[in-house]
């Protein structure tokens, strides 16, 4: 936008004239106010201008008194309140902290999952040929902190998965799913609003 700035170092009249709006609203500093008052005593044009500006101010104040915005405020409040729940973190620092927490959680979950795999392999070495199949995939999953236990159980059940590890301190779980259903399960979990992270760790822990 064009802002041709007018220098105001001119005559006392010009300077007082530029100060008048804030003389009228009472926010000039003491020295500025004294200068304007001294000039007003001898300048009829500025006296008239100040009077006109007082009328302008009165009109604004009268408008203020007529303003009734409460219904709109209520409406806006509802809108913001709706979005409020989904507000992003308020700072880069917080986002970074959350990211680090996630990475830490993932790391813990991976360690946990690898431990499970090693244990699984150790157990496998003692399995008989008739033991249940071990063609399973392991997923690290994190649920939204607001997810109820019942919702979590239902989601795991619907995904044909079993929780075999967790929760870690950060809330990560290790889920075992049949290998053949692994892709569909991952997709299902990722599309769920209750799930914040899905990572495929292995295909059953086999090399």
């Amino acid at each position, binding site marked *: *936008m*064009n*802002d*041709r*700035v*007018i*220098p*105001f170092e001119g005559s006392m009249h010009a300077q007082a*004239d*530029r*100060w008048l*709006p*804030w003389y009228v*609203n*009472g*926010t*000039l500093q003491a020295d500025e106010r004294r200068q304007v008052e001294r000039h007003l005593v001898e300048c009829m*044009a500025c006296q*008239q*201008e100040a009077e*006109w*500006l007082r*009328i*302008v*101010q009165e*009109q*604004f*104040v009268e*408008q*203020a008194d007529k*303003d009734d*915005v*409460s219904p*709109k*405020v209520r*409406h*806006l*409040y509802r*809108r*913001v*309140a709706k*979005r*409020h729940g989904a*507000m*992003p*973190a*308020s*700072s880069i*620092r*917080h986002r970074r902290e959350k990211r680090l927490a996630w990475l830490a959680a993932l790391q813990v979950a991976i360690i946990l999952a690898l431990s499970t795999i090693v244990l699984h392999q150790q157990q496998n070495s003692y399995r008989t040929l008739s033991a249940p199949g071990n063609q399973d995939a392991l997923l690290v999953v994190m649920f939204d902190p607001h997810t109820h236990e019942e919702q979590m159980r239902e989601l795991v059940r619907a995904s044909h998965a079993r929780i075999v590890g967790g929760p870690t301190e950060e809330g990560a779980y290790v889920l075992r799913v049949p290998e053949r259903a692994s892709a569909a399960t991952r997709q299902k979990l990722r599309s769920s609003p209750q799930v914040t992270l899905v990572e495929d760790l292995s295909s059953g822990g086999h090399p």
Partner: protein
Amino acid sequence: MRSRRTDSAKGVPVDEEAALLGRVAAEEKEAFEALYRLYNPRLQRFVRSVTKQPALVEEILDDTMMVVWRKAYTFNHRSKVSTWIFAIAYRQALKALKRLGSLEEPEAAAYADVTALGPDDALQQQELRKHLDDALSTLSPDQRAVMELTYYFGYACREIAQIMSCPVDTVKTRMFYARRKLRASLASRREAI
């Protein structure tokens, strides 16, 4: 004084507002809601007056409060909370006008020297009472913002410069042209009658 009345419209002292914003920075939702209730009427009035686009007001207010929520931690206490929030609202209003294509270069007439207009008489003052709102709509958003912040919200020139992120002399210039244009608008209405 208008500024004191609006600044403490809900009886909240300036330092308590800063504390409230500090709690918003710590992501306390209750504090955000309190700040929202405290500022919404003022921001609504300001945004409506600057944009003259009622359809944009809600969106701009939402955007403003979202920025307040996200950026509260950047408040550095060098200005009043109200100055900081109004600055955000002002920028959001300009952004919205730009998106709408309503933020155009002021027409040449906006800078015409209309000081030749004579002093106001009683008739012109009556017209002002009747037609202030219409006359304000002839001003640019910047000029309306200066008028609004001065006369409705009672801010000092330096505070307005902070809100509008511009030098004090720019505020004085905008006010100078706003006053002249307001007079010209009222004069043209008188001639049209």
